[in-house]
């Protein structure tokens, strides 16, 4: 794991510093003198040779520092921590709701193959999977913020927010509703289709026929024999979606002005803010490694054959 991490750190540095742009070139101002541009490059530390910048970067990472953003002059870790609660609230909740709805739909659809419910589940799943997230977001805004104005258009809190604790919690939930619905609608389809396909494969296996011959109830067959067997591949996908909870959902964050990590990362790339890009991708790399590690542990818990 340590070798992988070191490779990621090095590739992070090389890729971003090879990008054909520098942070100062993103300031388009005809009255910004050449001398000022040079001073800004110096201030950003870009006047140093690449190898010195690399040593500094590795040294900082090893001492737990992700660097300071060129633009906000704030430590990258502080910037991330400022947004992380919002991001986890939105994408974490959305991941749970979309998984719950999608997997439930997939299970029931596979158990009633060919029924109206199955057709409706596949249809809605395919539709939701195919429709772009921005379209879903804008549609929800149009309906629930404009035509029937019961939800706010932007932000995580009212402007100004209520001062009482209980009212504040409700206020956040009120603002969360539309972005949460957007991501849930966009994501449940994938889960539903995937679960249904996996279960349909499993339900044709010999041991299911045996279970039916033994007179087990359909519910037991479905959950104890069918669903249990599709857990390893489901866990893989769930584990791989954990880094996505950290990186947020850029499009939804932009549409609903949700102050999250996704947009921060996007802005970092657009502004060629090396510390932000390097810091975020470093954390993502760690999360991917940890997710895979936990997925391996979970496999062994749900599938005794792996333990052997």
């Amino acid at each position: 794991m340590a070798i992988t991490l070191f490779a990621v750190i090095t590739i992070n540095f090389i890729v971003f510093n090879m990008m054909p742009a520098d942070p100062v070139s993103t300031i388009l101002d005809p009255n910004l003198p050449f001398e000022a541009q040079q001073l800004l490059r110096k201030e950003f530390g870009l006047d140093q040779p690449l190898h010195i910048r690399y040593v500094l970067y590795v040294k900082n990472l090893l001492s737990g520092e992700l660097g300071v953003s060129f633009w906000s002059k704030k430590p990258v870790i502080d910037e991330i921590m400022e947004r992380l609660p919002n991001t986890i609230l939105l994408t974490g909740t959305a991941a749970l709701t979309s998984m719950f709805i999608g997997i439930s739909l997939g299970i029931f659809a596979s158990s009633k193959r060919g029924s109206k419910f199955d057709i409706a589940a596949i249809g809605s799943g395919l539709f939701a999977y195919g429709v772009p997230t921005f379209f879903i977001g804008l549609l929800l805004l149009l309906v629930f913020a404009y035509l029937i104005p019961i939800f706010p258009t932007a932000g995580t809190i009212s402007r100004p927010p209520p001062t009482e604790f209980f009212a504040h919690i409700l206020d956040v939930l009120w603002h969360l509703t539309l972005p949460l619905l957007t991501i849930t609608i966009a994501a449940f389809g994938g889960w539903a289709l995937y679960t249904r396909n996996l279960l349909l494969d499993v339900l044709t296996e010999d041991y299911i026929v045996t279970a039916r011959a033994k007179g087990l109830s359909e519910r037991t067959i479905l959950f104890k024999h069918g669903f249990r067997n599709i857990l390893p591949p489901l866990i893989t996908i769930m584990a791989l979606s954990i880094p996505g909870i950290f990186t947020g959902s850029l499009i939804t964050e932009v549409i609903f002005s949700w102050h999250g990590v996704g947009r921060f990362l996007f802005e970092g790339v657009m502004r060629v803010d090396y510390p932000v890009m390097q810091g975020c991708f470093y954390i993502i790399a760690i999360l991917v490694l940890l997710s895979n590690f936990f997925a391996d542990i979970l496999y062994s818990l749900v599938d005794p054959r792996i333990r052997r």
Partner: protein
Amino acid sequence: MNKVINAMILAILLCSSSFLTTLCYSYSQDIGQWESNGPRVDEIFFSIILSPDPQKIALKTGEVQMMPDLIRPIDIEELAEDPNIKLFMTPGLHMFYLCFNMRREPFDDPDFRKAVAYILEKEEITRTIFKGYVSPLDTFVPPAQGEWYNPDVPTYPFDLDKANEILDGAEYILDPDTGKRVDPKTGEPLRDLIFFTPTYEVAPTSAEIGRLICERANEVGLPFVHTPMDFPVMIRKTGDERDFDMYVLAWGLGRFPTHLYTLFHSKFDIPGAQNMPGIRDKELDTILERLWYGIEKDEVKEAAHEAQEMLSELVPYVPIYSRFHIYAFSTDWNGIVNMPGFGAGHYNNGWTWLNLHHKDRPFGGTFKRVLSEKLDTLNPLVSTSAYEQDVMSPIFSGLLTVNPETMDDMPWIAKDWEIKEWEYEEGEIGSIVTYHLLESITWQDGKPFTSEDIKFCIEYIRDNQIPLYVQSWDNLVKVETPDEYTVSIYLNSTGYWYLYTYAGMTILPKHIWEGVEDYRNFRPWEEPHPEVEGLTKLIGTGPFIFKEYIPGEYARVVWNPLFFRNHPDHPLPATEITEAEQELTSYLIPIIAIPILGIAFWLLYKKKLSTRK
């Protein structure tokens, strides 16, 4: 009056594009009623809403009362039809242009560049791509720069016959076999001429303009190849590497034509500097030096006009269009000043924020406006973002201001000013800029504002070599304060523009900033004021006091009762400004309603299933 203005706007929007353009200019002459005392509102919220569709919904539902800088024709048309919204339109300080690389053949040939200038369908571009919400531009200084703009320069209206005639005359003969024109120097067909634009995803209009120009160029036998590319790559190729044939891009400009010097003087034809076309013309350099270093207004104005004429002959760029600034306000609010060049809600137009008031009451109330980006910093010494300026500009006051009707200089913190020459070394001439200050000004914490604050501020940015203020310290010799209300700045260079370099500078309070050693990491808006409760260290002398910034959500400024131009009729607030809180029902109803509806549907479904059984 409002109905009349709305009717005028609607009429304008319904007109055809060329006619519309003319009307928009005449409309912008009516800047609205204004006075130099204020502010009238108690507080302003800068509500962060990132994308235009939610911004529009927030404006229409009354969540906010102002949407800034409309660009998309669809938004303009939709909002113009809304009787509760009024649009304010004014020509902007902006130039979209086509740039040639004059270091390369055939762009080193002025005839070739002139021929290309004739194939640009500016009217067509403004009509079809922008639906008339931009204005075709023929000069290197947009009309919004007022007296600095020279309308009497050679122009290049769309004329393919003329382009063909010039190319034929310069011996770029059309080869009937290849359909391409022949390079007169080699006798071979011209090589492919690469035309850079940003991609359709990043800047659809720029990419489309590039495609249109290439199509017309191909019609006259010029092998232009439209090459959309990633924006940072394009900036590097054009700015640092100078590895391009031609490209289109835009500049946002200031109030004065100083950009002519930084964009076209041969000393800036070095990688990273902004003479992208690589124009090197001694005669032009002389004129531009008069423009930059001249000390009398008439002298620099004459130089600006001459430079525009010469640039129109040399054609290093072909100016294409200049955009309008369009702001949408709720009709419930009056006192909006539609300042030429900047527009009704721009941070350089403080008049709107002084005069703004609800139609039913002359004073008080809360105004909420959209801010299209979050804020990274509210430290005036490091901020480069226009959105941060939106929040900071009402907090600070400049030494001078601009009359929004005449665009002339107007006294503000400085009641009088002068610029004169001095001999800083034997035979070397520099300039002295002197400002005489008003005596009644205080900082927002009640401390008196004096010339010592200005001296400290200029010396602080010099000692720290602050990049964004390099023009303020690069040629600085010394700052003197003969008395508490007079400051003289001695420079080892001349230039009429120094008056504005310091007049527009953000002046920082000495008693707050003198202890700041690392200005880069100083976050004045997050640190409480050492003496006055409720204030932060982000204080100025402006009409509004900074109150709070909730990252990613909103910023808030409140009325400064100590402002030196407070409105005499504005009553002092009896208590703290009350914060309007959401009524609990507004979010309880939808939050509770959705799960209840879900449960109801589920029960109905179950009931249906059991009935079937």
